[in-house]
Every structure is written in structure tokens, then in C-alpha cells.
């Protein structure tokens, strides 16, 4: 504490002590006049002299603090254990200061000024960094959650408009003539448009979309911005910056940020930050684009392998259901097809089979078999011949992957359906009679594709109206589970269920078998499951609804 003696010269030594202190110190009396000051204060506040009014030489915030302190009538010195007076803060010149008051016994107050400019700047920078980090982490988790390009563009535009600009445009590179552009105003929802424009007409945009030559963010003169770049009702554009969206080695697009005139322009640090955001958005959009390209390839290849949807053909009802062994797959080693006769009045050919193996590899083999059978359709009335030719086609010295299948030729005759059935090493088809009896078809043969020959015996039978023939794969009967676990679904249970299905439409029988087998396995593992039901419709009326042949009422 500075002694009152300082005023009288006795304290000159002490005064000289703080006189050379690195912090500016000034003492003002109750009348608001400067009493003392040190060298540092002289440098900071030029023109300061003892006797000058405090308010004339210090900024208003400090003079007000001095007045407030005097008005409060503070007695000198904080009593032991009590906090000293809190400092006040303010700016002097271009720097920020904390002013710590020390009331003295004679009623004067010594003000110690501490320069905390750098501290404040660091704090502000830290706050800004934290905010940006939080934003980038939010952006990353939102962007990474989707593999859909459209949604990634929406999210990018929306986040950019919320945090970086008054409006944002996300533009994707395209091979087509029209440029996909998602626009979002701050507080608005993203809107997709396709613009028939040449990106090279906008400086920096063509390069950003090509990813070559590499460009940093590019400022463009707002007055040269094309009309499509400025969202409707945006007002006058103050500044525009175009930032490339770098992808995984390929350009993912461009981000255009717009600010209104009158608002703050983009600072260099904001532009750097926008680039960090662009890197994340670009990576997400690039991943989404790659995913889309891959899925569209898969989709095309898969289309051939997916089971067809069945319907009524020439007065015979067909329904089929398929469930691959793994939930994430859509194809597997089971397959079925129904080929309508080339000539009306002849039999349609149904094939249901099961190749050995699982997953995509098995599915590819089913594709080969389905194609071969399709090519052999002219021989469809001779099941044995088809099977023998298929056997030859599949035989290969390198492996013994085989298929078991059932061929069925079905033709309507009056209200009944005539069936010829041939099993090539496959589970026997079941016939659901109108009486509720479930019969096994009398056909048996060998598997196809692994042994030199594949003989099989064909059987012929007739379905009366409401009767059905059920073809299925072993995924159904070998399903393990049941209410108490560990039991096989089995043929007996399947037959019992089918005996309760008399008179049900074919699709309901398929659904019921699939449902009960699915409930049987519960969450357990299972093989591919396929069911096809061929039915003689209950009434003589033709179905009006099959989506393919023109029904009576469908215009």
C-alpha cells in the first residue's frame, strides 16, 4: 500500500519505486484531480499533469469508475479477508485495460492500469475456435449420417447458410447439360433447381467443379454474379465467395456463399474456416456420389437376379415369396420363375430351385441357370430333356456346384388346371386338395450339374378349382427354432399348415407359409427360403387384377 506520506515528499522514495513500475499508475483525489502519476502513465496518457482534472485525461469509463468509487464512500484499504475492489475494464487508445483501484487513507484513489489486450484477444479467439469446432463437429456428424447425395447437398447448403453466410448455394458437378444447384437462405429450407448454364461463365466456378486447376476460394464481383446465383428476394449482394468442395480425389462440387451489402464482408479467417467446412462437406458428398454410383451398378446387375413378382397367367394363379438368408441381402441361392406359354392354350413353365452355396456367389449361379432354362423354353414340354441339357451346361470339371429344382407345366382346362411336375433332386411338391388332404407329388430325380447324368421321373395331375400345388425349398422345412427352440419346422408341420389353407388364394398361402416359417426361426439363423404356389382359381371368373393381362374392368 502506498503511504499518505507520498504526497509530502517523505514518500518520494516510495513514489519513485512505483514511478518506474511497468504498469501505468495514477492517483486522483476526491475532487477528481490528478495528484500523482508514474512514467508509464505519462506514456499512455500524454498530457497528464498533477492538478489536471481526471476526466480530461482518462477515458470516460475510468473517470466514471472513479466517481462511482468516491460516491460509494469507500474507506481506505480493504479490511483483512475482504476482497479488494473489483477492477473495471475498458479501452485506452487501441488497447484494452483493467483498472484496479486502491483507495488511500487521505481519500485519494490510486489506479493501477493493467494491459490485458492480448489476454482478451486470446479469449475471443478461443471462444470463436470453440464455436467453430462445435459447428464443424455438428456438420461432420450430420453430413456423415447420409449417403444420399441430394440430402448431403441440402445439409451442406443449410449449415452454410446458418453459420457462414446469408445464403449458400451448393453446386454438384454433372455430366449432363443442367447443373444441379441447391440454394438455401438463412432460416429457410434448401431448394433444388437444375440450371441450364455454363459454369465457366462464372469466374472460378468451372475450375471448382472440375477440381482443376486447383483453386483456393475465389472472390467475385457481386455485380457480375449471374441471376441464377442470387436467390429470389435476397436483396443486394455485398460479397460472394466461391469455394471448391474437394472430394475423395475427385471434385465433389462448389460452395457459393453470399452476404448482403451492408453486412460484414468475409474476413480472411472466415474464408479459411469456410474451406475447412468445405473439406468436410466435399468428403461427404463425394462418398455419397460413390455410393450412388456403386448402388446403381449393383441395382442393374441385381435386377436380373431378383425373384419376379408373380400373378395370374391364362387362368392359373401363381404366387411366390422369397427371403434370403441374410437380412441385408436381397438375393441368394434359391430362385423361381414363371414363363408364360408362347402360344395361348399351352402350358406355362414354372421353375423353382436351390443351388448349393450362399449369398451373391450362389445368386450368380441361379442367374446362369435361369438364363439356361429360359433358352430351353422351346423344349418346355419335355422336362427330362430340359434337365439333361441343363446338366450338361452346368457340368464342369473344376467344381461340383449343383442345383436341385422342380419344373412344373401348368395349363388351364375348363375350371381345372392340368399340371406336369418333375423334381430334379428337389423336395417333393405338395398338393393341397379341396378336402384338406395334402399329397406328395409322385416325382423324383437327381440333382443337376454334378453327376454325369440327371434322370428324373415326371408326374401328371389335375388341380380342381380351389386346389393348389406348393413348391418350396429346404430353407422352409429345415428352419430351426420353434417356441421352445432347437426344433425343425419340418415337412409334417408344413403339411398341417397347408391343410388349413384350403380355398385360400395363392398369395395368401405363400404369405402364410412364409410368415409361420419366419416366426418359427424368430431371430435365429436360417437358409434362403422360397415358396411358389400354383392354384386353380376358385371361381370361373378371370381375375381383373394382375397388372399384366388386361382385366375386364381395367381401362
Amino acid at each position: 500500500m502506498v503511504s499518505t506520506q507520498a504526497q509530502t515528499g517523505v514518500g518520494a522514495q516510495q513514489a519513485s519505486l512505483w514511478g518506474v513500475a511497468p504498469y501505468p499508475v495514477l492517483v486522483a483525489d476526491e475532487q477528481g484531480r490528478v495528484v500523482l502519476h508514474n512514467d508509464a502513465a505519462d506514456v499512455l496518457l500524454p498530457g497528464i499533469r498533477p492538478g489536471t482534472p481526471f476526466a480530461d485525461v482518462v477515458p470516460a469509463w475510468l473517470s466514471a469508475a472513479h466517481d462511482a468509487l468516491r460516491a460509494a464512500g469507500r474507506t481506505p484499504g480493504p479490511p483483512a479477508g475482504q476482497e479488494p475492489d473489483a477492477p473495471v475494464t475498458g479501452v485506452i487508445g487501441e488497447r484494452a485495460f483493467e483498472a484496479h483501484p486502491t483507495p488511500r487513507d487521505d481519500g485519494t484513489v490510486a489506479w493501477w492500469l493493467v494491459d490485458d489486450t492480448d489476454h482478451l484477444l486470446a479469449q475471443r479467439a478461443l471462444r470463436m475456435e470453440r464455436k467453430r469446432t462445435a459447428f464443424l463437429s455438428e456438420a461432420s456428424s450430420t453430413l456423415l449420417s447420409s449417403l444420399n447425395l441430394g440430402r448431403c447437398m441440402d445439409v451442406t447448403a443449410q449449415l452454410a447458410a446458418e453459420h457462414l453466410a446469408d445464403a449458400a448455394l451448393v453446386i454438384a458437378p454433372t455430366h449432363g447439360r443442367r447443373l444441379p444447384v441447391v440454394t438455401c437462405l438463412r432460416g429457410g429450407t434448401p431448394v433444388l433447381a437444375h440450371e441450364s448454364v455454363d459454369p465457366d461463365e462464372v469466374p472460378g466456378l468451372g475450375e471448382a467443379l472440375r477440381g482443376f486447376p486447383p483453386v483456393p476460394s475465389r472472390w467475385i464481383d457481386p455485380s457480375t454474379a449471374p441471376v441464377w446465383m442470387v436467390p429470389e428476394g435476397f436483396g443486394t449482394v455485398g460479397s460472394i465467395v466461391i469455394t471448391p468442395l474437394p472430394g475423395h480425389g475427385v471434385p465433389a462440387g462448389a460452395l457459393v456463399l453470399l452476404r448482403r451489402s451492408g453486412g460484414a464482408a468475409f474476413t480472411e479467417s472466415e474464408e479459411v474456416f469456410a474451406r475447412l467446412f468445405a473439406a468436410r462437406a466435399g468428403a461427404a458428398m463425394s462418398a455419397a456420389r460413390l455410393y450412388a454410383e456403386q448402388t446403381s451398378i449393383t441395382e442393374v446387375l441385381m435386377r436380373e437376379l431378383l425373384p419376379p413378382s408373380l400373378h395370374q397367367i391364362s387362368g392359373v394363379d401363381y404366387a411366390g415369396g422369397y427371403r434370403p438368408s441374410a437380412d441385408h441381402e436381397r438375393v441368394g441361392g434359391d430362385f423361381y420363375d414363371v414363363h408364360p406359354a408362347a402360344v395361348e392354350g399351352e402350358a406355362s413353365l414354372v421353375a423353382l430351385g436351390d443351388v448349393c452355396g450362399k449369398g451373391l456367389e450362389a445368386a450368380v449361379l441361379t442367374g446362369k441357370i435361369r438364363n439356361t432354362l429360359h433358352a430351353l423354353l422351346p423344349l418346355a414340354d419335355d422336362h427330362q430333356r430340359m434337365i439333361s441339357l441343363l446338366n450338361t451346361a452346368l457340368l464342369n470339371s473344376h467344381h461340383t456346384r449343383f442345383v436341385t429344382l422342380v419344373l412344373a407345366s401348368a395349363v388351364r382346362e375348363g375350371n381345372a388346371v392340368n399340371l406336369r411336375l418333375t423334381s430334379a433332386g428337389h423336395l417333393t411338391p405338395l398338393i393341397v386338395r379341396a378336402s384338406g388332404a395334402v399329397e406328395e407329388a409322385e416325382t423324383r430325380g437327381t440333382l443337376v450339374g454334378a453327376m454325369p447324368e440327371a434322370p428324373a421321373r415326371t408326374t401328371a395331375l389335375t388341380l380342381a378349382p380351389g386346389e393348389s400345388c406348393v413348391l418350396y425349398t429346404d430353407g422352409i422345412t429345415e428352419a430351426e427354432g420353434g417356441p421352445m427352440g432347437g426344433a425343425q419346422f419340418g415337412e409334417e408341420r408344413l403339411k398341417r399348415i397347408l391343410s388349413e389353407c384350403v380355398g385360400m388364394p395363392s398369395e395368401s398361402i405363400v404369405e402364410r407359409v412364409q410368415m409361420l416359417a419366419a416366426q418359427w426361426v424368430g431371430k435365429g439363423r436360417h437358409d434362403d427360403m422360397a415358396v411358389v404356389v400354383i392354384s386353380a382359381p376358385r371361381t370361373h371368373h378371370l381375375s381383373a387384377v394382375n397388372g399384366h393381362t388386361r382385366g375386364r374392368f381395367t381401362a
Partner: protein
Amino acid sequence: MSTRTPHRPPAAETVRDTVTESVGGTVGGPVVEQLADELWDAVSVADEYTAVEVVLGALERGVDPESVLLDVIARVQGKVGEEWAADRLSVAQEHAATAINERAVAALSLHPAARTTPTRGRITVACVDGEWHALPARLLAEVLTLRGWQVDYLGAQVPAPHLIAHLHRTDSYAVALSSSIATRLPTAHAAITACQAVGVPVLVGGAAFGPDGRYATLLDADVWAPDARTAADRLALGPLPRPRPDHQQLDDLPHLADQEYTLITRNSASLVRAVFTALQDAFPAMRTYSEVQLERTAEDLAHIVDFLATALYLGDEDLFAGFITWTAQILTARGVPASSLPPTLAVLGRELKDFPRATRILERGAEDLTPVDHSTAESRS
């Protein structure tokens, strides 16, 4: 425990739920009532030809296609459920009726009066995995199409990986998920969370979510709709909120931390086995059961355990009590005394005595059962 009822409980539950659902969204009027009667007459005898004629005839006369879907077809489907519950339709008849209703919907969708061009965004409509009852979702898909949405209808029992792959592939604005069976709710919850995780909001519907949609709220679905009409109205109102990206299943259901659900689900088969064995002493009538009857008993037990697990998952005693009461009614309707239910719950309670939440739920079920035990089929509407 009944072993003579011809039903399988899951299908049964489905049907009952349809009743609740269709009644909620029905708009009356003499014309549609007349149509519903005509359609019922056709559907109940599996006459597809007449059924399709009724539906297409209505369109020809200018009846609004949406009204035909919701006030005629959905209403008739509701009646199918009622009639099955009252044992006036067999399983085969019920399935046939449902299939013909579905064919009627298909016929309607091809009619020029129902032809629309999409003017709105893309919506994915799907049933939760394990949900085989597709008609409510199908009706919603048709209604949304009529109202100008571009609809991707994925059908019954869609595994979550397929649903998510579809959402990545398409720019769906929202997913509408349907579930009628309460026991599918844990699966539905996983699907809801997965859709939200890829940034797509989820609208849910179907009786599984409770008549007031309470489970939709519990499982943090973005929107719940009691019926197709309300769902379509809500979607027309404006954009759905974007889901929180960080939604975790456990946040919705902190009580799962006690592991009761996990343990009971994981060991459900051995639990059913234990109860099955103990029940043979507690319920002597079982000794006279045939093999098929015994298997049905085991299936019914498994279904009770399934509902118990669901009640544990949701932390909701009412769900289990409601199921037990309803089971008793179904048995009674078939002239089967529900006297096997109390001993079953008691045996189950003994097996699960170390599971406090399960014990409470079972006690609640037993309490609610007592008055119903003596009621008869006539007491129900």
C-alpha cells in the same frame, strides 16, 4: 391355455388392430355404407369378381377414390377382423377376405379415376420387419399417391438394412412406418432410430403404437398419425422436423439399463420350456392334450413371453394386461375357458421372481384377468 383355438395369436392381434385403426379414420355417409355392405358380402365369400366390381363401380359413379379406400375397403377389413375375433370367420376365410381386399385396392389403383401425376416430394412407405399385415400401409401408400406424392411402397416386413439402403439410394423426404403388432415395437424402435440417423424424419402409424400414439412418442418417432387420412393431412401441412442426428435408442428408454428385457429375450426359448414343464403340474388338463395341442400351448406361451418382453422394453404394464385380457376374450369367444391363463402367469412369475419389473407386470396381468375370467362371449360387442 387354449390348444383348440384355430388361431395363431400374431395374426389374431393383427386383425384386432385393424379394427381400431379403420374405425378411427372412417367417414360415414349412406353411399359408402351401402358400398361397404356390398363389398363385405363379396369379400366374406371370397368373391373377387364382385368385390372388384363394387370398387370399380363406385369409381365409375364418381365416388372419391380416397373414400373408397378408407371408408369402404378399410372399413370392410376392420369387419373381417371383428368377424374373425368372434369366431364367425375361419383363418382361411380371413386370409382369403384380406387377399381379395388387396386385389380390390390394386384394381382401384389402376383405374383412371385414381390416376395422378406426382406434384409433391418422395415418401417411402413400409411395414416394420416381422409385420406381415400390409393392407394399412398399402392403403396409406395409395392415399398419398392420390394426393400427389411420389410413393415408394416397400410392402410388408421390410428389414431395417433394406429400408436404410433405400433411403440412401433415394432422396426420400420422409418415411411412413406401419406396425400393427405391439410385439414388433422394439424392432420398430430400431428402424425409427436408423431412419433418423440418416437424416430422414419418420411418421408412424398402426395399432402397435397405441390408440393415442403413446408408444410413438415414447420411441421418439417424429410424427404419429392414427389413420391414413390424418397422416396425409399432416404431411400436406408442411415439412416435418429434421430429426436429431444424435438420437440413441437408450435415451428413450433408460429403464432398459436393468437388462430384464435383454435377459428375457435372449433366453425366451428356455423360459418357455421351463414354464411348459411346470405347467403340466399346475394345469393337469394339459396331460390330456394331443401333440398338436401341446405345440399350440408352447406357441401361446412363447407369445405371452413375447408380450411380456415388449412390456419390459416399453416399461408399460398396461400393454401386457391388455394383451392378457384380450387373449381371455378370444378364448372365451371360441368356447374355451381361459382357466389356463392364471396358472400360466403364476408359473411364469415363479420363473422370473428375480426380475422385479417382470414380476410387477405379471401381477398386473393376473389382476386384470380376474373379472374377465368369468365373462362370456356376449359381453363383447
